[in-house]
């Protein structure tokens, strides 16, 4: 019989054993260091493999807030409208005024999220943090953007998010289980002395996200009640024109909303809130207010099926003209007014027994 090519005669030698043991030891020590506060504090939060700059950031801030306060009671999710429009501090004040109780809230609004990507994040957040109250800030755009479009895809294709939704990948698994792996990119950049985007002290931030997740803006826009200029080719105008001129609510987004509403049965109270928009936004819709009302009606119908409160803000008209950042985003002033109202409304609903949350 001819000799085989592979002829290993002995068991693995000392070098192999030493290598395995030392490697395990080194990884364990490095993981312990990566999980420690002194290591994490000077660094910007890891991105979880995402191209979305806010996702990893908000996750890290939420973790830090829970470490600091010991609990999280309510989280508000949605798009940039929530990010700039929900001030947890004002919400907490409004809530306390009505109930006399403290509540710890976090703003998990991330830019360009749609109903589909928000639903994905809701699933993960409920699983990981079990908040007693989840507020979904919604607007017509949430239902017009397809899941394959760039913005939702950035969130849904984040390896960590995809893994958490059941799409296994080694990258996703490692991001979920290892802080060393999460901070690996930071360490790589630090080793190359590239501090911008890695060290807080060297990172330029235009609009800093506060520890409670809120990104306040001071700018005031005055044009928000007027129709856009015919020749205006700014991003804001072309974007809204593209998605609203022939407004469609996609089935996949409505299904996603239903999957969010379904969590109401799992012990987490869900509330859906219409994010305030300026009157000027209606000019972008092909059928003006009737398109907008179609959105309100459909969301209201679905919410009532799942017995979830859907609170509309449009009839209240409580945002002053100096409360707007643009057609659909609130600035710091608008955010404070809206959040205080929301806090009071939640407090009242709780007091009246209209929503099922256990007292903090």
């Amino acid at each position, binding site marked *: 019989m*001819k*000799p*085989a*090519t*592979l*002829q*290993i*005669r*002995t068991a693995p*030698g*000392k*070098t192999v*054993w*030493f*290598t395995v*043991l*030392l*490697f395990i030891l*080194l*990884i364990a020590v*490095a993981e312990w260091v990566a999980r420690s506060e002194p290591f994490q504090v000077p660094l910007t939060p890891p991105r979880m493999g995402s191209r979305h700059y806010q996702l990893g950031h908000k996750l890290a801030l939420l973790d830090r807030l829970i470490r600091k306060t010991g609990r999280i009671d309510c989280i508000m999710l949605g798009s940039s409208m929530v990010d700039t429009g929900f001030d947890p501090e004002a919400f907490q004040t409004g809530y306390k005024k009505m109930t006399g109780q403290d509540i710890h809230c976090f703003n998990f609004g991330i830019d360009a999220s749609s109903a589909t990507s928000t639903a994905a994040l809701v699933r993960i957040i409920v699983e990981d943090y079990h908040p007693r109250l989840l507020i979904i800030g919604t607007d017509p755009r949430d239902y017009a953007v397809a899941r394959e479009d760039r913005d939702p895809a950035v969130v849904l294709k984040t390896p960590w998010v995809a893994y958490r939704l059941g799409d296994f990948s080694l990258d996703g698994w490692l991001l979920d289980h290892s802080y060393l792996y999460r901070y*690996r*990119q930071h*360490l*790589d*950049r630090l*080793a*190359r*002395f590239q501090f911008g985007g890695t060290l807080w002290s060297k990172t330029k931030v235009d609009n800093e996200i506060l520890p409670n997740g809120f990104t306040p803006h001071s700018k005031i826009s005055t044009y928000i009640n007027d129709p856009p200029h015919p020749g205006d080719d700014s991003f804001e105008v072309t974007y809204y024109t593209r998605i609203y001129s022939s407004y469609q609510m996609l089935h996949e987004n409505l299904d996603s909303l239903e999957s969010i509403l379904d969590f109401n049965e799992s012990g987490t109270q869900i509330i859906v809130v219409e994010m305030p928009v300026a009157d000027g936004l209606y000019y972008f819709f092909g059928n003006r207010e009737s398109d907008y009302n179609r959105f309100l009606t459909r969301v209201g119908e679905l919410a009532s099926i799942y017995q979830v409160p859907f609170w509309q803000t449009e009839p209240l008209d409580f945002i002053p003209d100096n409360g707007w950042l643009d057609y659909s985003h609130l600035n710091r002033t608008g955010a404070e007014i809206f959040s205080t109202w929301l806090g009071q409304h939640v407090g009242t609903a709780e007091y009246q027994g209209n929503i099922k949350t256990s007292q903090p």
Partner: protein
Amino acid sequence: MTITSLNYFIFTVLALAVYYSLPRRPQNVWLLFVSYVFIVSWDWTFAAVLGMVTSINFLLALRLRINDQGQSGLLWLGIGFNVLTLVFFRAAGFFLPELEAALASLGLSTQAGGLQILVPLGLSYYTLQTISYLVDVYRGQLKAESDFVNFALYLAYFPKLLAGPIERARAFLPKLSQPRIVDNGLIAQSVMLIFVGLVRKLIIADYLTTSFLPDVFEIPAKYTPPELVFWLVIYAFALYNDFAGYTDIVRGISGFFGIDLSPNFRVPYFSRNFTEFWKRWHITLSEWLRDYIYYPISRALSRSSSSYRSLANLVVPPLITMLVSGMWHGFSLNMILWGGLHGLYLTVERIPALWRPIVLPQHQPLWRQCLGIIIVFSLVILAWVPFRWELPAALQLWEALLNWSDVAIRYRRMFLVLPLLLGSLVLDFIQYRSEDEFIFLKWSPLTKAACMVIVLFCIFILTAGNFEQPFIYQTF
């Protein structure tokens, strides 16, 4: 599928798993199959070109010797075919725009850049192998290979396909006919080669390459001569570690198949003269050029001259050889200049041989050896300028190097890469002093394990940010 990618690792493991379970003959068929799969993973046309080149050279070689007489016409036909194939693909970048313009003038317009011909993977490397094979068969130094699978595998063998080593058929083909044994010793050597290669490529070369200031060589006037010299040294070490790392990795991978590949580097920056440098830098190319360009020219000149040490014989062969080397690296003026410079260095070094016997560097006093290392290294890095940059930029950089009115070093951050440079030198020094590239295997198990763990951890960290650079020599 680059050789440092996870895909390549999985591909190799799968190839090995089947390979080990097969007898020798099917092993070669399997290796040929996976080599073509590897090529197709880049582009199927690369496989088609390689298949055509393989078939034509195989058939030509079978008819190259009749009644023990070499057929020179067929040999030149074969050499011409191989050289023209190489020239066609390498020069396509020059003539395609002209062709597009000509078609457009005839009303046969194509999209801008619509005519594109990619240089087939490894073409420069396997062209040299086919030429040396034909010449060896013609000279009767090698019997034409009658087994098509073996010959095709000689050219296509995937570990060496991308950028060599440039193996000779005389040495490589017999390995394909012999049983191959992969034992503990060979596995240890292969693992060591892969680890050293990964350190050179992923840790040293890529780190040094990404540390360049973006405009350091684009706007040389912005920098002082000491700063430019510093970055040239960094480039020299980045280039060396990139190619040496590649070679170590593919030799290690090939070791797992029981097929030994030739080394390409032996600590070249410790060379004491240029003759020694070319025995230590890209060894398989240097030896090929020596055997198939230098020696034939030298022999022809010797036949027409009374003395072997004639001026013509000292000047012409190295100059032509290095010019050919430059053209092999690229059909451009800067590459020809690079080759010409090295030809010049070799020529000047040999002139004293006209009136005095040559003293080998190892027989010279230590100070002369050290001085030799410094001079050779300095001139080599000056020659890297046209190797890396187009002619106008290279001339600008040389000009900036001459202006020593300002010697300030303002970019102190550049010194942060020094530990990596030191690492490269230490690695070389250990191998140089022992004259044994496997010296690390003699270290204690704990030391070896600690080094491997540190290397693995560094690779784990330094490959996170997509800073990986393509292998430089893969583009030739």
